[in-house]
């Protein structure tokens, strides 16, 4: 049976994204940026000294965005292209880059939402083709042949101790 394909990111894509996120951070005055998959997994981040708990943030932002898309359908709107939460000291902006990728931006009072939105729209125009035109080059990338066997052994090791503990309490 053919193996399932994932969302694959190569070196060239990541370099382009990192470079763009750095520039976007600078011009928009935002504090933290992250590209994540629509299924809630982080791809890359840009930040100087603010590091939120990225895995939870990605999971929650992707889920909120997915829920927002469903709200749009219920309201007979084709799509809501962004999600915005305004706080007292910080704000969260989530927008869609491609079918599989979202952009998260957090920013504080030192910048304006209009400025962030303007530069984000421009950035998405550049980011979108990075993800949409990479299938051919990514098809050539392969995970190491021994990955499955090694992962299997590490899974056994990770759960070995706790499995014993569970049996003992039963």
């Amino acid at each position, binding site marked *: 049976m053919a193996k399932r394909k994932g969302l694959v990111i190569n070196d060239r894509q990541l370099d382009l994204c990192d470079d763009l996120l750095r520039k976007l951070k600078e011009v928009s005055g935002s504090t933290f940026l992250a590209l994540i998959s629509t299924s809630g997994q982080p791809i890359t981040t840009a930040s100087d000294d603010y590091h939120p708990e990225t895995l939870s943030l990605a999971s929650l932002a992707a889920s909120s965005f997915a829920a927002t898309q469903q709200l749009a359908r219920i309201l007979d709107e084709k799509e809501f292209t962004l999600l915005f939460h305004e706080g007292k000291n910080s704000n969260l902006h989530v927008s869609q880059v491609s079918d599989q990728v979202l952009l998260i931006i957090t920013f504080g009072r030192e910048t304006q939402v209009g400025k962030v939105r303007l530069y984000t729209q421009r950035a998405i125009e550049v980011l979108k083709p990075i993800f949409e035109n990479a299938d051919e080059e990514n098809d050539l990338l392969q995970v190491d042949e021994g990955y499955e066997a090694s992962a299997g052994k590490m899974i056994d090791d990770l759960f070995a101790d706790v499995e014993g*503990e569970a049996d003992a309490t039963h």
Partner: protein
Amino acid sequence: MPLINFAAREINYKIVYYGCGLCGKTTNIQYIHRKINPQARGKLVSIATEEERTLYFDFLPLSLGTVKGMQTRFHLYTVPGQSYYNASRKLVLQGVDGVIFVADSQITRLDENVESYLNLWDNLLAQGDDLTKLGFVIQMNKRDLTDIFSVEDLNELLNHTNSPVIEACAVTGMGVFETLKTVSKQVIAKTS
């Protein structure tokens, strides 16, 4: 669908616990959070009602470590089991690599189990997925109770894919890690 980030040397897989209301999905994930080495797990996030029923999902990231140079993670999710939360279940299933169907073994929960199993098929088909292409394990939970179905009967009802079946008692942890171990190996074997 896994995220394979060759540039950052990372692979992330998404595993979803599915099943009817009160079958023990959240109990599974809470047990894993409590027992696993804290260095191997992230924060447990739960979006629940005031009565502690899952409203949207629970989320727990687990790190396997570096495998052949690739940092490997499993992102565990639960869905809300109550039937009227189907819109939320569909969202949680997006991008799934492996499903653990938690069946409530009690005879009185037969209808709910079957309804949830059919609902899983419907929701996967609607997003162009198919259980045969994903990791899939059936966990028969609450084996410590009386008035429960035999494994054979539940297997006939809920296992049209001839998938692995694991008996469990999520409250005490019996079968919890065996279930997760089985589906974790499956998702790696079925994706590239």
